[in-house]
């Protein structure tokens, strides 16, 4: 295994130091062997490898949109060393067999740790619990359970799931969307939906479920995670639940930190996503929530779709956006360059906290001797125009196309091995 000596990196954007990556761990740079490959990292920021709590890799079932290999290559290019693969595949990841397959395919690809998310209910049907214990005990060691794409709307089923996962320290990640309030919904309900003549998707549909589930989590003393928070009201509710001392965590996507429902006026389905893009006021509340820690982390909700599912009229189009390769840049432009968070807090929101929520012990660790060698080097001074054709994903549905975004991932190391060097996949 190659040994790397990274010199002059700015650790978490503050002090300059060298890093030795040997045998999968960080060692003392003073012990660097003479044949170590030296990487000059002056001007670069070193962070622990990023961890995504919310990724759609589409395999098994929709290998035309993404595979575990192509998605994890995109993840590595985005600086990620671990991703959580959502359960809404075909077949659904609701048995030990499917989650083990996903886990093995991730290992074989070798670009990042692929942690399968198990479905909460069999077939995502919302009728009965999937075999959560079997998935937890499997080789994939599932700790995050979600019906993402569908809300666990039955209050009793949600309560039971929250209680049941306590046995193996699991967490239920809720896709908060009250189904009756969002039948045929196309976009955020507000001024724009009225003008555009689109069926509205009210904020209350998200907030009502979050309020209910926070109360349930508090009642039964379980871990609850809220997926892709998108409204100002949701941030307030989560802030309140945390103030109660309840074990509630939450994520926000890059696109909800940057884009608003004004973009829907183009009727271009590249902007169609679930939950929908909201208003500028919501964007501001999400940024404030991420800054003060109410929102624990940024998760991409990377959702690849083939061209034909976006190259059509709005109502017929699929919901979702790519995110892995642009997440760090969007974080930088919205939170770091605006002075709201430091690079140290980037590490906290994109690595430390998501690893802790997902209970991944060898990710999100401090950059110190003995830690697993999961490291990303970022050039914060770089800028680039997002070009969909450059993506490592099989799909092209990025809403950031053509935008000038700051920051570039120069290198990514997974357990001491380079997955990206000089910005190129290895």
């Amino acid at each position, binding site marked *: 295994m190659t040994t790397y000596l990274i010199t002059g990196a700015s650790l978490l954007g503050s002090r300059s130091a060298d890093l030795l990556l040997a045998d999968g761990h960080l060692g003392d740079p003073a012990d660097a062997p003479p044949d170590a490959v030296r990487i000059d990292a002056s001007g670069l920021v070193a962070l622990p490898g990023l961890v995504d709590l919310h990724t759609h890799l589409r395999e098994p079932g929709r290998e035309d949109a993404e595979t575990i290999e192509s998605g994890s290559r995109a993840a590595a290019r985005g600086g990620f060393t671990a991703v959580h693969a959502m359960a809404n595949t075909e077949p659904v990841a609701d048995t030990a067999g499917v989650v083990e397959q996903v886990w093995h395919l991730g290992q074989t690809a070798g670009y990042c740790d692929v942690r399968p998310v198990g479905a909460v209910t069999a077939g995502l049907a919302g009728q009965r619990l999937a075999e959560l214990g079997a998935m937890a005990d499997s080789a994939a060691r599932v700790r995050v359970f979600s019906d993402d794409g569908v809300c666990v709307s039955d209050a009793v089923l949600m309560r039971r799931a929250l209680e049941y996962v306590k046995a193996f320290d699991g967490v239920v990640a809720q896709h908060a969307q009250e189904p009756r309030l969002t039948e045929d919904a196309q976009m955020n309900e507000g*001024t724009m939906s009225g003008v555009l*003549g*689109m069926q509205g998707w009210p904020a209350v549909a998200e907030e009502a479920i979050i309020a209910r589930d926070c109360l349930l989590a508090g009642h039964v003393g379980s871990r609850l995670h809220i997926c892709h928070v998108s409204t100002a009201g949701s941030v307030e509710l989560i802030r309140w639940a945390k103030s109660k001392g309840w074990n509630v965590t939450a994520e926000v996507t890059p696109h909800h930190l940057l884009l608003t429902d004004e973009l829907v006026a183009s*009727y271009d389905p590249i902007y169609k996503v679930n939950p929908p893009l909201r208003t500028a006021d919501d964007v501001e509340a999400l940024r404030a929530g991420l800054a003060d820690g109410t929102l624990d982390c940024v998760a991409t909700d990377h959702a690849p779709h083939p061209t034909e599912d976006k190259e*059509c*009229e709005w109502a017929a189009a699929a919901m979702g956006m790519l995110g892995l390769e642009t997440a760090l840049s969007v974080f930088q432009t919205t939170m770091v360059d605006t002075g709201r968070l430091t690079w140290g807090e980037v590490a906290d929101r994109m690595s430390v906290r998501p690893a802790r929520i997902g209970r991944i012990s060898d990710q999100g660790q401090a950059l110190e001797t003995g830690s697993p060698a999961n490291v990303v080097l970022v050039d914060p001074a770089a800028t680039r125009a997002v070009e969909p054709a450059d993506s490592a994903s099989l799909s092209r549905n990025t809403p950031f196309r053509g935008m000038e975004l700051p920051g570039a991932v120069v290198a990514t190391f997974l357990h001491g091995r380079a997955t990206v060097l000089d910005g190129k996949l290895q």
Partner: protein
Amino acid sequence: MKSHLLSTADLTKSDALRVLDTAAELRSLADRPIKKLPTLRGRTVVNLFFEDSTRTRISFEAAAKRLSADVINFSAKGSSVSKGESLKDTALTLEAMGADAVVIRHGSSGAPHRLASSGWVRSSVINAGDGTHEHPTQALLDAFTMRRHLGDLDGRRVAIVGDVLHSRVARSNALLLSTLGAEVTLVAPPTLLPVGVSSWPVATSYDLDSALEKTDVVMMLRVQRERMNAAFFPSAREYSRRYGLDDRRFARLPDHAIVMHPGPMNRGMEIAANVADSHRSVIVEQVTNGVAVRMAVLYLLLSGADTTEHAAGEPTA
């Protein structure tokens, strides 16, 4: 004029007046024995209808034929669309056949925008009704009809009554009539007004009776009975009592006021049969005017586009 007609929001006051004035000239054709003009000879207009709408399609067809254009009717029923062909492939097919204008009716809001902005077709796109978004030529023919009866619309009061939430006619009219200086009031139960309507250039009311006495125009919208099952209102009878234009309410209208309806009507639901058939009702005339207005739109979009005189003299943005 722009090269497409997608929304009445895109029309300036002078754009709109130009359409209406052109339509007035073309309207006089309807009273002549030979109704045809050679203006669009050799041009092809495709009626691309993904939703059934015999009335609108026939109106566009008559308009195009009176201008001597070739007309191709493409209806989704029984076509490749029902076999799963995408909007894109349908558009590419029409483009390959040399369509100069595509008149599109689609159930999905924004489908005409997609067609016009995607680069799939070079032809002019005319929105003939998209989902619950807009129906610009309906609003133009409504404005045309109002002008014939009331003259200049500046300061005129128009009440639009009924299912505003789902009505493309209401959206297009609210925008166009405001541009033309009219004072529009949308009257509906709160469940049938869109969230965000307060940002529209209109007034709103939940009370039909209070809006009637001062109005110059009352435009009744079609209410689909299936809305009842979705709890927008308790029953057809209650809706009719609170928001229907019945004989009693009709009697309270000012003498000069006109009654409009985009059709098809639910007689006895949103409008009483006597009212629909009264001398103040201009509902049948709306249909006649529809042909003239659609002729004007086709004429301005198609003959303007390749006339250097026009191209030089008119902003085309």
